């Protein structure tokens, strides 16, 4: 769509210049000697499950640490607002005069989330908090299995349509004066099901998951979810990022295989990288799967600006 002036790629390295060549072994042998670790995945799943447990426990045992649900909550009394819900409220509010009624807590919550996710960057919310992501991430493996067995075909769409959905849901909210997205939002539905008890509406989530398994991989998260888009816009220029070091890369592309948003790791392909150092883009969920899988530590978590000091 938008034509960014492309830099010319750095010519591909020769085999002798590969990082593992110094050891005198082939890349395959070198890879086998560095077993895959699941450090970041375990930490991330731990955080995700713990936070959702905290939501549940706060209501179930009345401990009041993290009240509310993922569409709006209070952490030790500090309000937090889902950015897309907040945007919808503000847009509808501007057209009806409701805007003036919105509370101070609403804006405090909105700006805290803005700042917090700007610092963490990208779609951090998705892989570190979202319960739907947790389900989809695991059912994705089932999808991959079926594709590998040639039971189903892969269906890909244009990644840009999520912006159409984002604008569309915002427009729909203003036009119909109903939070259209929140009524079909699987994140809110699962979050409420965890906290206030399950209901029939979970069938919608099951249907979405089934669709993702048998038809299009991660359909909701990749092409529709406006919450994710909001977070990716918020965290586009964030200091926390995944840093790619071309000099350490062996171009095995294992990271792209495990990555939840492989298009953000476009630079790992041989001869594609245009700079020595690349940072994963806005859709990166900072999940750390590529950090775990990279044998040569070419991909790492970093805080931009600070990495030069140390």
């Amino acid at each position, binding site marked *: 769509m938008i034509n960014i002036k492309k830099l010319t790629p750095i010519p591909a390295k020769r085999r002798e210049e590969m990082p593992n060549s110094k050891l005198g072994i082939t890349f395959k042998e070198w890879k086998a000697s560095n077993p895959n670790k699941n450090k970041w995945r375990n930490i991330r799943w731990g955080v995700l499950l713990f936070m959702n447990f905290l939501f549940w426990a706060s209501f179930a045992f009345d401990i009041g640490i993290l009240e509310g649900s993922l569409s709006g*909550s209070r952490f030790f009394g500090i309000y937090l607002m889902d950015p897309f819900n907040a945007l919808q409220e503000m847009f509808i509010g501007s057209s009806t005069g409701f805007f003036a009624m919105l509370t101070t807590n609403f804006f405090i919550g909105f700006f805290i989330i803005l700042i917090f996710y700007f610092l963490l960057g990208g779609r951090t919310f998705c892989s570190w908090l979202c319960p739907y992501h947790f389900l989809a991430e695991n059912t994705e493996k089932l999808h991959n299995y079926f594709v590998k067995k040639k039971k189903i075909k892969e269906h890909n769409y244009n990644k840009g349509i999520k912006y159409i959905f984002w604008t569309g849901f915002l427009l729909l909210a203003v036009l119909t004066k109903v939070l259209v997205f929140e009524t079909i939002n699987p994140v809110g539905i699962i979050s409420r099901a965890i906290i206030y008890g399950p209901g029939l509406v979970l069938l919608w989530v099951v249907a979405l998951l089934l669709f993702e398994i048998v038809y299009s991989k991660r359909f909701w998260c990749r092409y529709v979810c406006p919450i994710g888009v909001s977070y990716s816009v918020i965290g586009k220029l964030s200091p926390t990022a995944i840093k790619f070091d071309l000099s350490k890369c062996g171009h095995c592309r294992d990271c792209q295989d495990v990555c939840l948003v492989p298009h953000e790791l476009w630079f790992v392909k041989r001869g594609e990288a245009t700079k020595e150092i690349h940072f994963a883009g806005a859709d990166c969920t900072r999940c750390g799967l590529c950090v775990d899988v990279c044998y040569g530590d070419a991909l790492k978590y970093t805080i931009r600006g600070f990495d030069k000091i140390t």
Partner: protein
Amino acid sequence: MGKSNSEIDRRQFLKNGAFAIAALGAAGVGVNYLKKLNKENAKTLLRPPGAIHEDEFIYACIKCGLCVQICPIEAVKLAGINDGLSYGTPYIDPLMQACDFSCDAMQCVETCPTAALDFIPFKKAGENALTDYQKANPTPGPDYNPFVVQSKAMKSNTKMGLAVINTTTCLAVKGEGFKGVPRESGFKGVYRSPNPKRQERKASPVNDHQFNREICDLCVTECPIGDTAIILEEKPGTDGRKQWQPKVLDACTGCGVCVMICPTTPSSIVIEKLEMV
């Protein structure tokens, strides 16, 4: 002649984008239809205190459930998928658990981040009550408690609905008394009795209360607002017998304690929403 990558990309974007817009349009039409249905549905759904008009409430509520969590007696619940577009929004079923103002300070209203439950009128009512009190009593007595004055004014500012009495089943109208516990065994509802003898600080189960009344007047004596909201009116009957009837007055907040406490099955009082006219 092969197409360039960006050309294929552009075509895919247009094709998928058209599909996305169609899907959004369908969602919009569907929601508009549900919205019409919801107008009927929402008449029976009693909103928590301070709820703004239903047309605004439906978009103001982000379905976070903070009001559900803060309620000390669990009166506020989230609507299920049966309630259509109102799915996930809070409501109160007074027959199961009425709002008895146990929290004293309208916590569900204060906690709402989007002003779907609007706290500003309550705040104003509380402040006005304090200034009025200070004007009336320039030297407050030793038992003066500003919090009580404030919370009473805030309570009275609630307008969830209006109690309506079914005069054919009401025990008082029939001239009957009532003895025992008001509700069927196993009923879990709680309320805080306004009876000065009990001086309850916390809500207790409805069925912990034993009543013995010559003429049933539970709705009148147990009303958290008091005799400005509901009174038992004496009426000379047609055949010369004395007849009684509870009469709902303007100060009724529609909290529904009378609905919950009414010993008849079904309850002889219902709360009707005001705003749906």
